[in-house]
């Protein structure tokens, strides 16, 4: 074995880069020496996939592209709105992934070249043997008139981070007697119960801090689409909620501070939280991974390989066709399943049949939660649901379990 050059040594030692104080760039990975998996997106799916490829086979090089230097959890972020948790308590770094040998690059994939098996990042490119794409969701700004031009003022807070903090600030600054309007897009969107949990958290905050205020929920769907009876029961404690189903918002005017529904109703607000309609993350659309609907990506249920492009696997909220919700827990499971599938395929071994699972807690106050759990099997090469189970009510015990779940799964992704 020849002596490694200084450059080779620093790259292969991983942490040598940190010790040397120089962050790696895409150009440093323009050539690959062995088998390489590139992962696009360091969220619930991508971070998990990157870690589990390394756990399953440390001889495979893994490069993770994630523009953000810190991960902020969407689950539990509704508690930041109500002031029950801080944003810091749901924010994590990527250093432990680096310790697993994942090359984390804080950059954005600009294109995928399936034939050349390369990811382009600006003028540079990353060759891969297998690519895992986990880009989350992108907003369809154009679906709501006036929204594209007002992106900086009309908050979604549907990707946890600065918007979460700003929406919490606006809620706290709203005068008692003010109207908070929350709008919910038509399914499918990220985290089906999320808007209804947010309804609980905003209503809980208002009830305790601004008792003359009102929360108007304009839902494009005809009814609550997840944990329906449990949320209805929880809302009995919040007479400040005015829920309007089948009220799709089609226009926003930040000047007059009003939204317009499909039915032509105009609703005035003091604080607005408009959750826009969604599709797969931009790279999935530009790389032609989405189906005829131009929104979501269809995949093989055993390997998560795209039905449109070979050697490219799509996981998480961007996928469609499996009987699973767009949840963090599902993305985490898809990360592991796709990782083990990719390792098997790169080693010419059979792909083990694996099914995801879903555990989803929703906080209905500062101390009580509800949950839904889904289990799955593989039948005829497809993911099929075995059972869905709901908690019989809300309780502090489910909330304690929710904390346990979050502690564990954040560790599973990034620890």
């Amino acid at each position, binding site marked *: 074995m020849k002596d490694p050059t*200084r450059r080779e*040594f*620093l790259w292969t*030692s*991983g*942490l*040598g880069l*940190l*010790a*040397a104080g120089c962050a790696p760039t895409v150009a440093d990975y323009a050539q690959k020496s062995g088998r390489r998996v590139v992962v696009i997106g360091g969220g619930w799916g991508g971070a998990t996939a990157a870690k*589990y490829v*390394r*756990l*399953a086979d*440390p001889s495979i090089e893994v490069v993770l592209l994630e523009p953000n230097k810190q991960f902020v959890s969407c689950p539990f972020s509704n508690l930041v709105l109500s002031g029950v948790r801080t944003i810091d308590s749901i924010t994590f770094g990527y250093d432990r992934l680096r*310790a*697993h*040998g994942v090359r984390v690059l804080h950059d954005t994939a600009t294109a995928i070249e399936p034939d050349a098996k390369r990811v382009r990042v600006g003028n540079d490119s990353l060759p891969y043997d297998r690519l895992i794409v986990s880009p989350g969701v992108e907003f369809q700004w154009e679906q709501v008139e006036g929204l594209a031009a007002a992106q900086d003022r009309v908050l979604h807070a549907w990707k946890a981070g600065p918007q979460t903090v700003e929406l919490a600030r606006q809620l706290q600054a709203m005068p008692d007697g003010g109207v908070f309007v929350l709008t919910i897009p038509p399914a499918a969107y990220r985290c089906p119960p999320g808007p209804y949990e947010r309804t609980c958290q905003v209503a809980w905050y208002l009830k305790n801090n601004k008792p003359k205020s009102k929360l108007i929920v304009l839902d494009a769907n005809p009814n609550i689409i997840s944990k329906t009876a449990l949320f209805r029961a929880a809302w009995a404690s919040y007479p400040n909620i005015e829920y309007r189903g089948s009220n799709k918002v089609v226009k926003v005017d930040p000047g007059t501070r009003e939204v317009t529904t499909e039915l032509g109703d105009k609703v005035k607000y003091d604080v607005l939280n408009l959750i826009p309609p969604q599709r797969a993350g931009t790279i999935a659309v530009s790389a032609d991974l989405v189906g005829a609907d131009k929104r979501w990506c269809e995949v093989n249920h055993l390997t998560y390989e795209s039905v449109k492009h070979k050697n490219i696997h799509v996981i998480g909220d961007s996928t469609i066709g499996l009987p699973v919700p767009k949840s963090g*827990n599902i993305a*985490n*499971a898809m990360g*592991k*399943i796709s990782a*083990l599938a990719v390792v098997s395929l790169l080693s010419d071994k059979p792909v*083990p*049949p*694996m*099914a*995801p*699972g879903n*555990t989803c807690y929703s906080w209905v106050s500062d101390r009580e939660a509800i*949950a839904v*759990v*889904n*289990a*799955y*099997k593989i039948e005829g090469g497809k993911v099929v649901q*075995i*059972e*869905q*189970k*709901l*908690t*019989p009510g809300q309780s502090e*015990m489910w909330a*304690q*379990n929710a*904390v*346990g*779940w979050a*502690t*564990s*799964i954040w*560790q*599973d992704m990034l*620890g």
Partner: protein
Amino acid sequence: MERDKVMPIALISLLLLALTGTAEAGPLDGPGAPTAVICSACHGFAGQSQSNTMPILAGMAPWYFKKAIQDFAAGKRTSPEMEPYAKQVVQFGLDDVAAYFAAQKRTVTPVTSDPAAIERGRAAAAQCTLCHGASGKGDPAKGVPDLTGQPPGYLKSQMLLFKADKRSPGDAQLKVVKVLMATIPDEQLADLAAYWSSVR
């Protein structure tokens, strides 16, 4: 960078890598592993739970793991979280998953308890040792499980479920433990949980 500065950095790199490397990386190629990794979302990688509420599965005796899964799947041990997952484990192969967790290195919970609570629990622990043994490691022949090293929150929640007869209601084998739990104040249950969690 000067060449004479490279080697010290390289040595530091190696040292850092040795200290922070993939120490927890376990085998993922056993027949139960593909199903077991789904469990790790809540129970930690290789069943080494990091939270206060989820039990550690690493190193768990197969007889106890299988009984728990079978009872959850049958709805006998009621849990809206575990019943669906138990059915999924049964679907993919209970024996393989039990063998996988039994083969993992047993760790103890990283959750620590108040030393005073541990001492109070130690003083009251004799009532547990009659069945679970002085070591708290249990007795497989009698179907009595190991209490040691589990998260205190998990141990306490199970004792409260026994006390309220909400864990496996009607299970004749559990009658004795439920009668006992009914005599213990909730605060002492917390102390006992702290103690058994601390036992190695």
